[in-house]
């Protein structure tokens, strides 16, 4: 009787392990495809920001809340014309963060931005991601337009801009290790 709890616990642990192995197998097959899908979305967004043929583009892996950072250099030179950040922040959904691409020119003006991944509520948070949040210069968010009723998603988007604003000067000054 005393060992029943332990046996049940072990059975639960075993079932959990089997499920974990099954998930890792599925992940092995789907992860490359998911990466492809996400890259396609990102490059489609980059195309909307700049004419890609005009630049030499290099990629750097970001740390923490930053994903891939795309560095746009004038063709044939080492001058950074713009940096596009993949940046994440917590929105309403607990499982997935809001992920944005934010394109900043060398004069700190914001070229454009786009939410590339989110799992916010359909009809609420998910519908505001295409909004104009009124950010034209990365180090000045005083005019940021939050959407009332969708505070958490708005805050996540504002956090993304803030994170980029905090590092852009250093990155333009050569802080990125390519």
């Amino acid at each position, binding site marked *: 009787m005393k060992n029943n709890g332990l046996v049940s616990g072990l*059975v*639960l642990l075993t079932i959990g392990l089997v499920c974990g192995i*099954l998930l890792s197998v599925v992940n092995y097959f789907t992860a490359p495809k998911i990466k492809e*899908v996400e890259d396609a*979305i990102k490059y489609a967004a980059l195309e909307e920001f700049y004419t890609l043929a005009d630049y030499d583009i290099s990629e750097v892996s970001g740390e923490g809340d930053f994903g891939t950072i795309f560095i746009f250099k004038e063709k044939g030179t080492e001058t950074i014309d713009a940096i596009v950040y993949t940046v994440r922040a917590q929105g*309403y959904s607990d*499982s997935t963060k809001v992920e944005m691409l934010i394109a900043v020119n060398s004069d700190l003006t914001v070229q454009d931005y786009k939410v590339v991944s989110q*799992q916010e509520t*359909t*009809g609420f948070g998910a519908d505001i991601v295409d909004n104009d949040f009124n950010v034209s210069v990365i180090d000045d968010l005083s005019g940021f337009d939050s959407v009332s009723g969708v505070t958490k998603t708005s805050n996540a988007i504002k956090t993304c801009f803030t994170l980029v604003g905090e590092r852009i000067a250093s990155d333009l000054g050569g802080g990125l290790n390519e």
Partner: protein
Amino acid sequence: MNNKDNFFKGIIKENPLFVSLLGMCPSLAVTTSFENALGMTMGVFFVLVLSNLLISLIMNNKKLAEMVKPVRIPVYIVVIATLVTIVEMVMHAFTPALYFSLGVFIPLIVVNCIILGRAEAFASDNKPVASLIDGAGMALGYGLAIMSISIFREFLGKGTLTIWGDLQLNLKFIFDFLKIEPIAMFVQPVGAFLTFGLILAAITAIANNHKNKLAKEVKNNG
């Protein structure tokens, strides 16, 4: 109960959405388009059929069932969550548009009361084949319910019917003929409740009518 009755009970007599009123939250949220409803149906079908089968297999093994019984709810959740995660990964990889459109409601299938309800109320006490058929019937009943809501909502709200991807029927000519615009309210949350209520009222009226007819027949024959 034979297999046919077991299958069809989930579609009509014990329809999880229109009769038991289970799993309403995601149903109302994702029925803005037929494509979303179809995607949700496929996800729920996969999870419900397999979770019923696996849980029945576990609980039909006497020795295993004895050990699992004290922790059966966590076991159900682990099995269901695994299946939902598989659905989520496969959708993300192969149908990204649908994945982004359904959003948070894919992982929320884990807490859909229909799935946990069938595991506890049916699969744990029945044979694997019967549980599989029950799961298929219930998932199909749920799917038909949300697809019917989505047809009304998308047609009335947008004047279209999105079957899958770019395959879309443009039915705006009906609105043009009637010289009115699509009623955007129907793709908003309020439209979900209104459509659901109207369909439920119609089903209740038909069911009551059927019951009255049967009662009259019994009275006349008796």
